[in-house]
């Protein structure tokens, strides 16, 4: 009898959950999980009739009322109201120009997955159909996390709670704009399932192409569809427990992974970005230096890919021998993401920011190499 305390929402799931806890305990006693679950389920069916109802868990029984059929219905609407549709770059070669996000403050802070969609200033459409131009407040490449801000107030939002004690077996809803199904004022899609496992993705490096190295929730629902990234994973008690990750496919088996990033690993990064402790916005207070005093691509020995687009990503094309960049072991195809914590959206931003750094000073870059996010220090 672990958790009879709260959860006025749904006795059904309460009971189910309780039941799962039992299964878990059993598993800890040395039985294989799957067999146990199947067996427990079997017992529930075959013994149910024979069992004295009074023997069933009393507190749960007391909680019983006629709300049997509510299930997810009550949790869906509030969750949908906190999820937004995000539109941005893409639309080519199977790259969808949309994804999902969710509100984490009444003033319009949204958490979403950091992706190519955010390569342009994104547009956010809220559940009520209102449309906003959003600003990217901060990104955390290693968590594939981005925080956006829209100019609005009094919005419904998810609290970023601590110590949620999420465990496998927890029933969850995944709420997202998968496949871009919801348009205008249509509500995001809700899907139900449970957390099937909690594990790390990097057990076999290279299997999944993601820079994320932390824990993930494996979901038994098909949550990670195109456009679902950045959606909310909400537990049976209505609490936000995670963010739907970008689509990942096992490079060996071709199996698509259904997973979410736990809130606990995102929480402090989100908090820091919102609190302004970390900002990836360019710092305007540093003056632009004369050309012969500041850093530039030549002083670094860095050659980027041709800047032919309005917003060309800062991909390294080649490195001059014995240059600063070579010493720092930068390599062709590295993508420069951050300069001293400031987001490098494109090459123009990068060269502009370099103008503000004295060429005698050292600075840091955050780069993406393959699916790794790496810090690099350039020391003159």
């Amino acid at each position: 009898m672990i958790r009879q305390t709260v959860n006025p929402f749904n006795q059904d799931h309460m009971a189910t959950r309780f039941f799962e806890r039992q299964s878990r305990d059993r598993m800890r006693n040395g039985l294989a999980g799957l067999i146990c679950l199947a067996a427990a389920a079997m017992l529930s069916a075959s013994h149910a009739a024979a069992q004295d109802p009074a023997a069933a868990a009393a507190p749960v029984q007391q909680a019983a009322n006629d709300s049997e059929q509510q299930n997810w219905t009550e949790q869906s609407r509030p969750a949908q109201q906190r999820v937004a549709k995000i539109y941005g770059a893409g639309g080519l070669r199977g790259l969808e120009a949309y994804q999902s996000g969710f509100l984490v403050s009444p003033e319009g802070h949204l958490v979403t997955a950091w992706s190519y969609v955010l390569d342009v200033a994104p547009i956010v459409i809220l559940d009520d159909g209102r449309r906003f131009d959003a600003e990217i407040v901060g990104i955390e490449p290693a968590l594939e996390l981005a925080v956006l801000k829209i100019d609005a107030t009094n919005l419904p939002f998810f609290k970023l709670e601590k110590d949620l004690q999420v465990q496998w077996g927890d029933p969850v809803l995944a709420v997202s704009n998968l496949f871009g199904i919801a348009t205008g004022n249509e509500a995001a899609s809700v899907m139900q399932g449970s957390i099937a496992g909690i594990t790390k993705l990097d057990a076999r490096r290279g299997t999944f192409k993601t820079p994320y190295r932390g824990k993930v929730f494996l979901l038994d629902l098909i949550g990670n569809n195109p456009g679902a990234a950045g959606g909310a994973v909400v537990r049976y008690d209505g609490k936000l427990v995670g963010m739907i990750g970008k689509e990942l496919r096992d490079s060996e088996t071709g199996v698509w992974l259904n997973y979410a990033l736990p809130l606990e690993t995102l929480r402090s990064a989100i908090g820091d970005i919102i609190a302004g402790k970390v900002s990836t916005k360019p710092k305007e207070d540093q003056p632009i230096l004369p050309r012969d005093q500041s850093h530039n691509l030549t002083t670094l020995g860095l050659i980027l890919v041709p800047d032919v687009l309005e917003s060309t990503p800062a991909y390294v094309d080649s490195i001059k021998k014995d240059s600063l960049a070579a010493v720092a072991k930068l390599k062709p195809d590295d993508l420069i993401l951050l300069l001293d914590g400031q987001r490098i959206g494109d090459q123009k931003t990068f060269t502009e920011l370099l103008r503000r750094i004295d060429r005698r000073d050292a600075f840091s870059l955050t780069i993406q190499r393959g699916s790794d996010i790496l810090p690099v220090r350039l020391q003159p």
Partner: protein
Amino acid sequence: MTAFRITTFQFTCQLIGVVVITLHLLASQVSAETNSPVVVPKLVQQAEQARIKAINKARPSAVSVFMPGGGGGGSGVLISPEGYALTNFHVTSPAGSYMKCGLSDGRVYDAVLVGLDPVGDLAMIKLLGRDDFPVATLGDSLKSKAGDECMVIGNPFLLATNLQPTVTYGILSGVGRYQYPSGTLLEYADCLQTDASINPGNSGGPLYSSQGDLLGIVGRGSFEKRGRVNVGVGYAISINQAKNFLGYLSSGRIVDHATLGATVTTDPDGGVVVSNILESSDAYRRGMRYNSEILELAGRPVSTANDVQNVLGTLPNGWRIPITFREEGKTIETLVRLPGVHRRDELLTKMASAMPPPPPVPDQPGDKPDNQEDQPQRRRRPAQRPDPNAPQPKAPKPESPKPQPHGPGPGGARKKPVKIPPQAMALIKNREGFANYYFNQQNQDRCFKSLQDQFPAGETWKLTGKTADGKDIKLLLSNEKCVVSLGDRSLELKAKSDFFDAVDTGNDAALLVALDSLRRLMLLGPEKFGETYYWGTMPLGGQRPLRDCMLGTSQEIEHRWLMHPETGALECIEAFADRDTDPAEAWLEYDNGKLTGLDLRFGVESKRKITELQIEFDAQTTSDAAPAKETAAANDGEDQ
């Protein structure tokens, strides 16, 4: 939910009779190893019992559809004890008029095609051989909400070769979804989205609520890069839409959906406004103009263009519905007649091109990059989302499951000619423009029979009554002439063009046109009257219940006779002369079942009210026995 689901899974298995033994073995092992028996909370037990009950309620009405000769199949659901069932157009289209259907009672029934709605992807079929088929309880899909538990029962991957359907469970992921037309025909309006597994072969089958009530007809899924299997997104046509179409489908026709004759757009400041309107549309005649703001449609408030399309897309061509709009600061509540999305020939042409191509030679990789894939054997453009940046989905070639739903199986084997048994053959009648004319004939006979109970086949009809201002009014209808006399004025219709003009100009003589159509119908019978057929059911004056509508064209005027669904009483005769003007409507008013008054209306205005109505028929032929044949010779009908 995991344990929960496994109980259901296990339960389902018990029902279906698979893998139970394995689990039982496991169970006994476990109970031996752990001394304390597992205590199942009562709520879990209750929930499980409720689910068992719902599945037991729902399963018998689920139909597994198979093409005779192994040419594919799908699912369906029974909605009447006589065997009428709903499925998808794209399930029946490869089959033609005859198919085999299995129920969970383990029996296989012959079935014939009844009606088709290619735009809404619905088809009605009739199972034969019983008059006590188990039927689904129709729910109210408008009351459904995202998060509601639901289940899909059907024939995925055509697994139900033992005739036991597969049950999958989930929740409604979204309601009121609008899915853009896929290819040139299909449009899913106001549909339900679910995460219950929907796979090829589930098409046409039922989506039930957690109580086992029918919420929708499964139709398509978002299948993208993961191959042609469930990716957690399936769509069902709402049962409320299907309900609107039941009468139309039962007519044996190929039916079309409604449009407004205007396009709308969501105003950035909120609300939905008219962005274009046809001057010939009924909406225009009722005062709707460019920039009018539409507030309500068919009783549902609308605030976006999708809302409007969600209502219109669920309505059949030809319905007249209430509408509220604001024009120049004035709120107008009125009725509007909805034209069809397609012209009749256009629909048939498009439908023919939507039919599956001849069976392909073994699976050809990479030829179907569809994203909203519902018709594996049909070539279409991928569905478009409104976002202009939306990607063209690029799918690696999915592996086709072995038995191929909805289409001929792999190997390219041409279907063997199917031998249709005589009892099914008797219920199939091909006619251009109809899915199965047999059912139209049945309905015509039913309606005509009902009219015969009310009106004799008299050659001359004399009607007298009083107008609103107390004047005497007389109407005389005969083969030679039709005259209306009001006080000392009288109008006479002689030539064919007189009839047309009377309706077109909207004068009192239009009443003669409407009533004379009835007189001639009773005298000649439907076959001799002109091109006559049963149209379906529609609201009268925007109001339910839905009335039976029989339609007959004669002398370039289209007549519609609308009859009450229960009493059969003729309530209104509509006469359409020019498509761009209001029809004449003769409303028949009853007092205690006796016809006592008439009301001639144009648009939404009453033109002439007649009370204290008396009718005299010449008692020439009032017998039920084949009136049409007897009088046909004497009536050319053309020379009036």
